[in-house]
């Protein structure tokens, strides 16, 4: 394959998914823009936010990449099969690690801001926000990744070309939406943070 063919091929394969991810990213931006009052009320939320949305991308992107390689190598059947030990292992590990790392990020945000002499919001409130948002966004993203990777592969589209954009797009938007939901829920039950 000539260099020009590689460039044109890679560009054409990636552009639609990338363009879709820009649209998704703007939706995520709209949610973040709408959270300005929450960002001001919950001190530390903006510091926590990048680590939290990155965790969505890391954990569920890694799940997608693992499934793509498994499908390419024939380790995984291209169907949603709950009796497959490999699929169950990959999904359970993604969910457990996703929630664990979110909670770790919230606790670390508190510790770092406190150590730097800042005035972070209540530690338990931050951890509760991370746990609620982590569980809900994890369930939504696992379902999305598993379904779309398998469907794409069955239709002859290489999951490698869309797994990254799919996860960052839906991950950021879904992640921020559930973060907003979690913040408002914790605010409601604590009557302010």
């Amino acid at each position, binding site marked *: 394959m000539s260099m020009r063919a590689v*460039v044109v091929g*890679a560009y054409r394969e990636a552009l639609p998914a990338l363009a879709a991810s820009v649209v998704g990213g703007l939706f995520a931006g*709209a949610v973040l823009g709408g959270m300005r009052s929450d960002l*001001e009320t919950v001190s530390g939320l903006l510091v926590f936010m990048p680590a939290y949305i990155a965790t969505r991308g890391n954990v569920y992107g890694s799940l997608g990449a693992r499934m793509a390689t498994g499908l390419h190598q024939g380790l995984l059947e291209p169907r949603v099969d709950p009796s497959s030990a490999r699929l169950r292992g990959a999904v359970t590990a993604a969910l457990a690690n996703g929630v664990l790392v979110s909670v770790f990020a919230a606790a670390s945000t508190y510790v770092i801001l406190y150590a730097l002499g800042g005035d972070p919001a209540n530690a338990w409130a931050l951890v509760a926000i991370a746990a609620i948002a982590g569980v809900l966004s994890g369930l939504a993203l696992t379902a999305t990744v598993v379904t779309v990777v398998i469907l794409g592969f069955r239709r002859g589209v290489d999951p490698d070309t869309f797994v990254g954009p799919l996860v*960052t797009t839906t991950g950021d938007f879904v992640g921020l939406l559930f973060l907003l939901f979690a913040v408002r829920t914790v605010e409601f039950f604590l009557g302010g943070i």
Partner: protein
Amino acid sequence: MKQNWTVRAITRATLPLLLVLTLVELVGSGLVLGSVEDTLIDAPSLLVLVPVTIGTAGNLGSVLAARLSTAVHLGTVSFDATDEALVGNGLATVALALTVFPAVGAGAWATAAVTTASTTLSVGRVVLVATVSGLVLAVLAVLVTIVTTYVAYRRGLDPDDVVIPIVTNTCDVLGVVVLVVVATLVT
């Protein structure tokens, strides 16, 4: 390369890196954003630009990383400055950035204008911030991806476990830092 798909094996392969990357994100992206919180609250088009810029930069890197990672598994790439798969994919990444980032800027301005009724910055300014940031980020994303994939490959690590997390997080951190620096210079 054999993969073990139990919860324990996957956790052992990925969790330590995830915890380290989380701390990197907190310090590299979180604290940087926190330091310009007032600016972002006052100019919502920049706040809207944050997730879409870091997301797009991370995507550019992760598509490249996934392609190189599978090429490593299939044995169809050589780490050589004349390798067509390597250089061609790198050039495509820069071309993709130059296509999408102007649209990212215009879209962020429009999103902020519609959802927050705020047009503190002109559309031209926001497009300029996005395009300059995007070009810088694409070049950095290519370099980081190639180096990370090569190191993983040389050390016998599965690129699926390590390359994508490292690349997307580095792009996140670089995305925030580059965006904040460019925005400060241009606005």
